[in-house]
């Protein structure tokens, strides 16, 4: 990358392989977003031509285009044939996708979600949670599925299994009106979760519009009630390129 990289996250480039493991288009998205945020690329003006950026940064045009199309999806820039690419607005939200490790953050994230659930008649598979929770499965689950977006970019396929007794008590139409974890709050005592890395299968790739086999992050959660029953199971498959897990180690 060039000297114009002001993203501040690629220092330590000298350390072997670490910097190179972050896909170049991800670094470009960070850089370009930073340029727009800080006003180096002002709103309402054109950004430098693709070829100039590619030459300056020492990357291929295709990679620049890949980063551009991400920003276009976010609604930050817009390319017009023959007239270059204009900055429409400053980035509205964060770029990185966090993975919550506490209930308040989980609730907050569920409240910020704007997506429609699709009910699933018959689950495609039952997630195997036995490797990270001691909770006991209940008799029947109501299954919901949805694709979540952030800043207009789809990033997660989520499948939730909710204890049928809860679904019956609140009425299934509640899931369309209220954030999921607000609904579940009174029923839950404890969350066990596992976060793993995988590659996008064909369906995931199609649903969240990423290349087949691109890295994904799989977040599986078991929500236990006070009796140790699993009244909620969740499996979220996130596009991996913008996931960032931050933890303080005591």
């Amino acid at each position: 990358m060039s000297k114009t990289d002001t993203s501040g996250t690629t220092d330590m480039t000298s350390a072997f392989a670490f910097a190179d493991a972050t896909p170049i288009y991800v670094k470009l998205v960070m850089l370009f977003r930073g340029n727009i945020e800080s006003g180096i690329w002002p709103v309402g003006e054109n950004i430098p031509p693709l070829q100039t950026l590619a030459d300056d940064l020492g990357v291929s045009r295709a990679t620049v285009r890949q980063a551009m199309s991400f920003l276009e999806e976010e609604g930050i820039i817009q390319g017009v044939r023959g007239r270059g690419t204009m900055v429409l607005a400053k980035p509205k939200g964060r770029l990185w996708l966090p993975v919550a490790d506490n209930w308040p953050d989980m609730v907050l994230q569920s409240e910020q979600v704007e997506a429609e659930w699709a009910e699933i008649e018959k689950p495609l598979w039952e997630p195997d949670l036995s490797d990270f929770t001691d909770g006991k499965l209940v008799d029947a689950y109501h299954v919901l599925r949805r694709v979540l977006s952030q800043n207009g970019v789809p990033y997660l396929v989520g499948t939730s299994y909710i204890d049928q007794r809860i679904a019956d008590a609140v009425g299934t139409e509640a899931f369309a009106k209220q954030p999921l974890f607000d609904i579940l709050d009174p029923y839950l005592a404890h969350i066990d979760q596992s976060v793993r890395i995988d590659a996008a299968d064909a369906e995931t790739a199609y649903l969240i519009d990423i290349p087949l086999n691109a890295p994904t992050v799989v977040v599986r959660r078991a929500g236990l009630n006070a009796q140790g029953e699993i009244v909620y199971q969740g499996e979220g498959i996130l596009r991996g390129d913008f996931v960032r897990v931050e933890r303080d180690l005591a």
Partner: protein
Amino acid sequence: MEKAVRTPIVDFDQSDSPIYLQLVTLFRRQISQGYWPVGERLNSIDTLAQQFGVATGTVRQALAFLEREGLVQRKRRLGTIVLKRPDTLAPMTMPRSRADLVRFLDAMKSAPLDTSGDASDGKTAESHVYSRGETPVLIENLRFDGEAFTRSAPPMAQLGAPGFADHGLRQTTTIGTADTRTSQILGIPVNAAVALMSHSLTTPQGEVVLEAQWLIRGDAVNFVESFDTTRVTG
């Protein structure tokens, strides 16, 4: 008898990588997840080409690749047989505390990588490869203030020391892909997912005394966490 393909929606245009390589990964997945069991004969090349919407030559190319990996065997007139499942690694639970972290590294075998040396800013730089059994799983790039650590033990083994109790240790993980050299060292395919975990140990005044960057093969990574659903923080 033709077998159903579980994943009919494939858009090969979404990736820059050659279609046969995308097929390789798709087929490898079919085998690793047991949809194509060991010992079973695959559909004919013509049928596979039709099912996945690609040219027969592309399917042939992908199967040749898998044959070199030892996963399938192609026999004239008999078709393609699945020989074995790809090697996958049992996941490792990522450290959740400093004590965890010291134990985590201690349970593996470490060897220095040749890129060690003194950094220009006076800090010490070291690189290691950690293996579980004979399988390399983690590359570590270390940069630390030599005076803050004793020489009798590796710096990472000292993270739990009382002297660092008031230091913050932040772990930040992102996901990337293996470049050629990483893939060679870790023995994983190029472009396979890797976790980039960076740890920084910071004094109460905000001075960084140690940075440890880990590249871990993606299939080894598992964060296991547990918390109560109380809304009261702090």
